[in-house]
Every structure is written in C-alpha cells, then in structure tokens.
C-alpha cells in the first residue's frame, strides 16, 4: 500500500504523545513519593526511556513484530538493528513510524513498574530489571497480542491498545517485583504522603493527553476508528475520575485530588483495550466500573502486606482487567467490524471467554517470569539500598542530588567545592577568587 500523509501525521504525533507519557509518569509518580526520593523515581522513568529505546531498535522490534518464528510465541530476527525497515511501508504508514509508535509503548510499560519499588532500590538493579523484563516479558507479550502471536491470531481475543500487553502486564509484574523487593521501611507506620500534589496532577494531565496518542493512535490511521477511540478515552477517563472521588466521598468523607487523578488514570487504563470496540455509552459504563473498583483495589496492599508503593497493581492491573472484561460485556460491531459483540450486545459468552483467557494467561505468565527475574536480580546484584540510605533519602545515596534547594540563604557559607577529580582544582581557584572578592 501507499503511504497516506494524514495517517502518517497522526501516527507520528501519536508516537510523540506516548513518548511524553513517560516524563508525565515521572511527575505523576515523582510527586507521590516523599521529597527525599523524588529524583530517584524520575530517574527510573528516564532510564526506561533511555534503555528501552535502544533495546527496541537493536532487537526488541524484531522479536516482537518480526515474522512469527513458529509457535506464536516470539518473532524472528529479520529486523535486527532496524534491518529491512528503512523505506518500507506498514499498512498506510512508513514502517519506521510504526516502529517508533510501538517503541513508546514498551517504554511506558516498563516505566510503570517503577511505581512498585519506589524509594528503595539500587539504580543498577533497576537497569537490570529494564533489560531483563523488557526482553523476557514485554517483548513476548507484544508478539502474542499484536505481532502475530497466539492471543491475537489464534485465540482472537480483543485488545485495542494494550489491556494485556501494557496494563495487566505492568500491574501483575509490579506485584511480583514488590513482593521480592519487600516493604519500604516504615510501611503501614509512617504516612508517606505525596510531597508535591500539584506535579502529581500535572503528571496526570500529561498522561491523559498522551493517552489520546496511545489509544486513538492505535487505530494507525486518522479516520473514524481513531475518532471513536479518542472520544471513548475521554468519556471513560472522565467517568472513572468521578467514580473514584464518589467512592472517596462515601467512604472517607472527602473527595481528594489524588483521588481524581488516580481515577482518571484508572479509566484511561480500562478503556485502553476497549476504546476501539465500544461506543461512548459503553465507555461510560466501563469508566464508572473502573473508577469504583480501582478505588477499592488500592487498599488491598495494606491488608495483604505487599508494598506496591504507588499502586501499579491496583490501578493498572485491576483497571486493565476491568477493560478486558468490559469488552466481553459491551463491545459492539456497530463501532468496529473487526471487533465483536459482547454479552450485553447479544454476542453471548464467547467473546467474554476469550477475554478472560487472554487476561489470565497474561497474569500468570508475567507474574511468574517477573518473579523469577526479580529473584535472580536480588541474588546476583541485590535490590535494596542500605537502611540508612533509605531513611535519609535515596536521592542523595544513589544520585548525590537533592530535589529542591528552595532557600538560598546559607548555601554559600557552609558548602564548598569538593575534593574529587576536577574539583580539587576548582577548590584552589575558588579560594583565590574568594579572597579577591573581599
């Protein structure tokens, strides 16, 4: 087929939007942790942005979207190092646009995991998580659902933009990770309140914005399907935001800003698999369900004792499930011929069954493999920073930085350039100049 400039423009800008979700997530998560670990959280997100990009062009795209190497489990090496992609066309867009778009999905999915291990893991261990988990968990799953693998091709379950690959995956991988890494010091004792809620809300806004690229971009063309996916995304996100704070109002007495932001994300999560298969009223229902259920799910960790610090399971895992099951209930071919009819649209239990199989297969696979990866990393590298470092702040320990320096009064007098490398020289210079100044 020929390249269509409108479709290409849409996929390119969508890829840019999805890329922006990772800095958005860095703020959303970064604002939620305590002030002493904001930078580490943002660093984890930016590391995903860096490392996954490289993996993707080297071998990730090839294994995920290369021709199936047999059993519907993994692609082959045809596109290794971006071989055979330059100048090629995929549908109505350049292949490299598709590669780029899909890359950004791998990045954000990996970055989501950081929420489960806030405040406490060594950077080197996190890099190991990125590499191993992307290779052994994300890439196979992308192949299964979208790359010609068994979920998409044999089973025929529906997942428009990543209910399995992105949401259930990140949620249940996060659970495995949180279990292996263990609780933060002070979990269930200290408040650990978000240190900067305005940037949490900003991050939520950026994620909401980027999600239009994520969902509507997944149409891979700028037409009716993209428009449907987009309005569904808006409606479901809005409905879930309201449902979450409604639960809060009833349960806790007050609607919170963290709640409306969390609810919005839970709705965007739930509409991710379903946005191309339901109509706006279906999206509304899915949103109400997602917001209410996830608002309840995030308190499970306190009862069960795993410290999924920023609720990746509660929001993405559970929200993803709601969306996958929602397809089985409210999907309708009136919206998309390539979709199906859910239970309420007269399609019976057939589609619902497929959705459940895809969901459970994903849950099982990602939980087990991530748990194995995490155990391995813990043995070989070791996850946790020292207790002192964790208490006094991982930012200083891992990055020799602190997030804010909002008072400028005494920094000059009680600080000096250090002893290390270049600095030795500077100190010398600095001293001289200091005397000149007087």
């Amino acid at each position, binding site marked *: 087929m020929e390249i269509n400039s409108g479709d290409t423009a849409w996929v390119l800008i969508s890829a840019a939007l999805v890329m922006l979700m990772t800095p958005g997530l860095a703020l959303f998560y970064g604002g939620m942790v305590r002030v002493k670990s904001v930078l580490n959280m943002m660093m984890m997100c930016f590391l995903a942005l860096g490392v996954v990009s490289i993996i993707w062009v080297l071998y990730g795209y090839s294994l995920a979207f290369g021709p199936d190497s047999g059993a519907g489990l993994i692609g082959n090496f045809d596109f290794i190092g971006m071989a055979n992609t330059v100048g090629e066309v995929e549908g109505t867009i350049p292949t490299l646009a598709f590669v780029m778009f899909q890359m950004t999905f791998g990045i954000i999915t990996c970055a989501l995991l950081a929420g489960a291990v806030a405040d406490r893991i060594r950077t080197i261990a996190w890099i190991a998580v990125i590499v191993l988990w992307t290779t052994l968990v994300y890439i196979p799953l992308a192949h299964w659902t979208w790359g010609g693998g068994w979920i998409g091709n044999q089973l025929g379950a529906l997942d428009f933009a990543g209910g399995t690959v992105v949401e259930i995956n990140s949620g249940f991988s996060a659970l495995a990770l949180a279990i292996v890494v263990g609780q933060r010091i002070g979990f269930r004792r200290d408040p650990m309140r978000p240190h900067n809620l305005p940037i949490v809300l900003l991050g939520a806004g950026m994620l909401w914005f980027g999600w239009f690229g994520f969902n509507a971009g997944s149409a891979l063309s700028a037409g009716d399907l993209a428009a449907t996916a987009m309005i569904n995304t808006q409606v479901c996100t809005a409905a879930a935001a309201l449902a979450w704070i409604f639960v*809060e109002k009833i349960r*806790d007495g007050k609607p919170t800003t963290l*709640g409306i932001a*969390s609810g919005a994300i839970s709705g965007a999560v739930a509409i991710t698999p379903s946005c191309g298969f339901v109509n706006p009223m279906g999206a509304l229902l899915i949103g109400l369900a997602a917001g209410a259920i996830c608002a309840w799910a995030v308190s499970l960790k306190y009862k069960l004792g795993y410290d999924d610090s920023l609720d990746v399971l509660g929001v993405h895992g559970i929200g993803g499930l709601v969306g996958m099951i929602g397809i089985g209930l409210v999907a309708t071919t009136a919206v998309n011929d390539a979709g199906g009819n859910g239970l309420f649209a007269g399609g019976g239990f057939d589609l619902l069954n497929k959705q459940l199989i895809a969901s459970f297969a994903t849950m099982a696979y990602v939980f087990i493999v991530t748990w194995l990866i995490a155990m391995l990393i813990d043995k070989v590298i070791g996850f946790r920073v020292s207790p002192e470092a964790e208490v006094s702040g991982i930012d200083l320990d891992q990055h020799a930085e602190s997030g804010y320096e909002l008072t400028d009064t005494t920094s000059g007098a009680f600080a000096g350039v250090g002893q290390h490398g270049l600095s030795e020289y500077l100190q010398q210079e600095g001293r001289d100049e200091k005397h000149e100044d007087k």
Partner: protein
Amino acid sequence: MKLVTAIVRPFKMEDVKSALEQVGVQGLTVSEVSGFGRQGGHVEVYRGAEYVVNLVPKVKIEILAEDEDAARIVDALVDSARTDRIGDGKVWVVPVETVVRVRTGERGDDAL
C-alpha cells in the same frame, strides 16, 4: 534585658503585630515552627488511607525587651493572640545578659 518568646497561631499574627506596635515594640524576629500539644492535629487522606498529622503550624515570635517593658509585652501578646480555644500557644520570658546591635555595636537598652 529580657527575651520574650511567644508561640502563637499563624492567623492571629495580624492582631499580635498591631498589639505589639501599640506597646512600642519596634523590632522582632519571626520563625515558622510546629507545635505539639493538647490541640489535635488534622486528618489527611491518601488513596483511602487516613493519617492524623499531629503537628500544628505555629509562629514563633522573639522580642528583645528592656526589663521594665517585658511584662507589658507579655500582656499584649497574651491578649492579642487569644482565641480561647485549645492551641492558642505559650509566652515565656528568659533573662538576657547582653544585647548588641550589630550595625553600631551599641549594647544593652540602646541596642533595641
């Protein structure tokens, strides 16, 4: 010389300041502190978990005063900062041996 220190509610500062000006106070030093006491803290909620924050924001005022002015200043502080509800704060007085104004090197009462 005395150092009068007061811990008061932030939102009473407007009144406290006026009262102090009326008894002739011309300088003071303010800092932000947190108080713990009979007054309960407030509740915050995050993702369904509820926390009680027992520290209450307060303002600390320090005033260097001549011996004979101290009592009047204490009274002015107590009167103006009072709301009759728990958490109004404390005022105390400590003896000071020397006071110097940095700019001039003046000492004692002249330093104020």
